[in-house]
Structures are given as C-alpha cells and as structure tokens.
C-alpha cells in the first residue's frame, strides 16, 4: 500500500507548481490553468486525508470544490472573453491600463 505521506507530498508539489506557474506565466489561460492545478492539489489532499481518517466528509468536500471550480471557470472564461474583445490580447503584461 502506498503510504499517505506520498499523496500529501505529491499534492504539496502540485500546489507549489500551480502557485509558481501563477506567478511566472504571462498568458491568462495558462494562469487560469495553474489555479485549477492548485485546486486539484487541494482535492488530492482532501481525498488522502479522508482515507487516513476513514471519514467520508473529506470526499464530499472534493465534490463541492469541483462544482465551485466549474462555476468559477464559467465566470472566469467569460471575463477573459470580455477582456479579449476590448484588448485583443491574452498577455497579462499588455493588460496594464490601470496604474497611477
């Protein structure tokens, strides 16, 4: 059997990759994907802990996270489309109208 710590370490690595990509990447879609990666790392953590505690509530939580992530994706993509219509770019470095 795979020890629980392996899952947790994998989840932590995924979360860190997601957070790092969020900060480094310049394409809006890629940034958005890195957020999804972070959420999935959280899901993996939940499932691992649910297994460890023999508690179903951790797995229930995962379903809610997935549903909410889907709702967030719908709104997020709509915002990205609205931005693309007015700016014709997906590069965050060129989305820089708001400054002092």
């Amino acid at each position, binding site marked *: 059997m795979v020890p629980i710590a392996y899952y*947790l370490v994998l989840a932590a690595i995924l*979360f860190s990759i*997601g*957070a790092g990509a*969020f900060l480094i990447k310049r394409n*809006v879609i890629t*940034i*958005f994907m890195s*957020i999804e990666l*972070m*959420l999935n*790392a*959280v899901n993996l*953590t*939940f499932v*691992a*802990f*649910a297994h*460890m*505690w023999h*508690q179903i*509530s*951790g797995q*229930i*939580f995962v379903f*809610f*996270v997935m549903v*909410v992530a889907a*709702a*967030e994706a719908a*709104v*997020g993509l709509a*915002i*990205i489309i*609205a*931005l693309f*219509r*007015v*700016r014709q770019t997906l590069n965050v470095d060129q*989305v*820089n*109208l*708001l*400054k*002092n």
Partner: protein
Amino acid sequence: MSNNLLALLPEIILTLTGVLVMLAEPMIAPGKSRKPLGWLAILGTLASGFAAFYQLQIVNPGRPITAFYSTIQVDAFSIFFHLLIASIVLVTLLASLDYFEGPVTHAGEYFALVCFGATGMMFMTSSVELLMVFIGLEISSISTYILAGFRKGQATASEASLKYFLLGSFATAFFLYGIALCFGATGSTSIGDIAAKLGTTSTPLLALLAIAMVVIGLGFKVSAAPFHVWTPDVYQGAPAPVVGLMSTAPKAAAFAVLLRFLFNAAPAYRGHWIILIEILAVLSMTVGNLGALLQRDVKRLLAYSSIAHAGYLLVAFTSIQQDAVSAACFYTAAYAAMNVGAFLVLTQLSGYDEQARTLDDFTGAALKRPVLSALLGFFLLSLIGIPFTGGFFGKFYAFSGAIHNGHIGLAIIGLANSGVACFYYLRLLAALYTRPVKEDAALLPTRRIAIPAAIALTATAAATLALGIVPNHLLNLVQRAAPVTLPSLTVAPPASALPPTPATEVTP
C-alpha cells in the same frame, strides 16, 4: 417555523429577491428604465434586514439557533454581521438606482448580483462548518468578480474584473488548502470539532500550516499587505458604487470568518497566529499609508487607505478574546459607514463615466458641488479618525485593546501611521476647496442628486456621526456578539447585554 427555515431566513429572502429580479429583467423592454427592479431589490434587502433583526429578538445569549446538522449557527455575532451587510447593500442599492439610468441596458443584473453577493457574505458569517464558509465565500466572490467589470465595454473594467478574478481564485486555493490541512490535523471541517481537537492534535506542524494558509487566503480577501496587490487596480477600474460595496461588505464577512476561525477554532495556537497577525497588521498599515501618499487617482488613493484600514482592524485582533472581537466588529461597522459614504459621494461627484479621476480633476469641486464636497470632507475626516466621527472610536478601541495587552509597539506604529495618513486625506480635502488652476476643469457632471441617493448619503453620514457621538448602542450589540466566539458557549452573557437598538439605524 422550522429551525432550518428560521436560521436562514435573511439569506432565503435575499436569494428569492435576486432570482425574482433576474426573472423580471428580460420582461422589461430594452431601453426601459430598470428602476422598478432596483426598488424590488431594495425591498428584499429591507425584508432580509428585518428578518435578521427578528432573529436578534429571539436568539438567547449562549443559546444560538443551529440548523442543518449544526452547520449553520445563528447567534448575536452572525446577526450583527447580517445587519451590517444588509445595511451596506441597502445604501449601495439606494445610491445606484439613478446611477445606472441611461447608459446601461442591463442594470437588472447589477441588482440581482448585489443580492446574490450579499447572500454569500451572510452565509459566511453564520456558517460554523468550513465547507459552508467556502461556499459562501465563493458565492460572494463570483458575484463581486462580475460586478467589478460591470461597465463591460470599457477596457479598464474588464481588466479590473480579470485581476480581481485571478487573484481572488488564487486566494481561494490557499484558503482551501488551509481547510484541507486543518481536516488532516483534526479529521473534521466543523469549527466546533476543530476547536476541540486542534489543541491536542498529534501533528501541530500541520495545524500551524493550516492556520497560516487560512490566514493567507482570507488576507487576500480583506486586502491585507502583502496580499493587497489587486486592490488599487480593481478599485480604480470598478464602478464607484461597486467599490463602495466590495471594499466593505465582503471584507466584513471575511473578517467575521477570520474572527470565528482564529478565536473559536484555533485558540490553542494563539501565541503563534498572533505573530502572523502582527506582521500583517504592520505591513498593511505601512504599505497602505505610504502607498496612498504617491497616488494621484482618488479611487486608488482610497484603495490604499482601505489597505491601511485593514491593518488597523488587524491590530484589534491582538487584544484578548472579548475585547478583540468587539473592537474588530465595531471597527468594521465604523469603517463600513465612512468608506461606503466616501464612495457614494464619489459616485455622485464623478457620474457613470467617471471622467473625473485624479486629484486635479477634483480641485475646486466645492465651488460646483458644495454639499457633496462637504460630505466627502466629513468622511475623510472620519477616515483620519477625528473625534466625533465613527473612525475615531474604531481606532480608539482597536489601539487601546492592543496597548492593554502589551502590544505597545504595534499601537505606536499604528498611531504613527495615522499621522502619515492625515497627509493624504487632507491633501484631497484641500484639493476640494482650492480654486482650480485652469477654468475648463469641467469634468464633474452637474446632475442633481436623486432622492434615493440623498437618503443613502444622509444615512451613511448620520451613521458615521452617530458612531462618533453615541457609540454605546452599537457597542452593546458587539459586546453581546463577542462571547459567541469563545471556544465554549457556556459563558455568561455580559452585564451590558441591554436590548440593542436596531443596527439598521445605527449602521447603514
């Protein structure tokens, strides 16, 4: 009435109102006024506020209403925040009734989204199960992401919306990871269970990491430095009434969650998280106030000021339990009154297109709009913390609590920051009353103030003044609210648990 229904009555009313507004929106012919929908939303918010007030009458100190398998807990603490959020939403809706007349064809969505967002915020404050807190947080966040980009034709609006969305989701991921680790350390996501098990957990490192992650996630939401980077951009690009709403109501809800989580679920680690809170407070105050000094755009200036105020509010957290919670609650209410007021005045001053943006544009505004300028001046004085305004007592309780508990350095940093803050608030105030250099500085529209907006402005000004002169009414309410967040609910009610006045009068 069943317990479940009673516990969620304010949320249910607001949700139904939002759905009704959404359904009615397409029935109204394009080009027709959307004001009736606005009035519907206002009625719904009023009803929701009254429902919360009704709950306040029947809830006993120490005996909260629990519902849905103890995931929802209605107590004086949650009701206080319900009333506060309902009041903020009410004045925002009143002030934006005429704001969307004319250029906007989809104002009904605005009214519905405000209702949905408020539902989420209310949910956050009454949930004692982190799953429900998360859902409430998302309901409120997703609504505000859309509201931030409401002027969708403008490039700045989409940009603000995108930045808010990306950083908000980033923060949510941290918050969720914190919950996951908390679940790992205790085997539960219910605040009561966490409180019972966190102190004796066999993995204290996991618990510490969990608390830090939750604080980071909520730190983004309350725009505490160093998680504040989105704030100035979003506040600059979003419509002024929306900024008034989202700089106060979601923050109040996030602070409520933070209070419940830190004081109720994690008292065992107080020694550890207090260091984290102190760092956040010092950084927020310093970054906020120094950043505001450099701003020329008035909305950006107020954004940095809101970062600083998040810092002052965090100072209150360093006090002991009961003082901390009541001081933080009081500060949230006072801050809400004056900040919503300031942004409502900006809404009136600069109009829908917001041609007037910078300090130069507002120079000499008092010549053209004397009443509005005077009001803005009053709100700025309150944000400074001049006596006889709500801002003064907010700061007073926050700092005195910190001093009493030996955090003297923190209080000194806070007071020094308040001194720095005077400079930029007074610079804006002076600009309002200076004769403009060029005569054609006619960017300010000269529309008459509509009656609903006038009511909203009067209410916020009255609330700011009332909190500065007779803070006792609100103080009684928050002192009744504070013991709820004690780890065990068996505490005796405070001696001052007098029947409080309706907060709708005290804190619009």
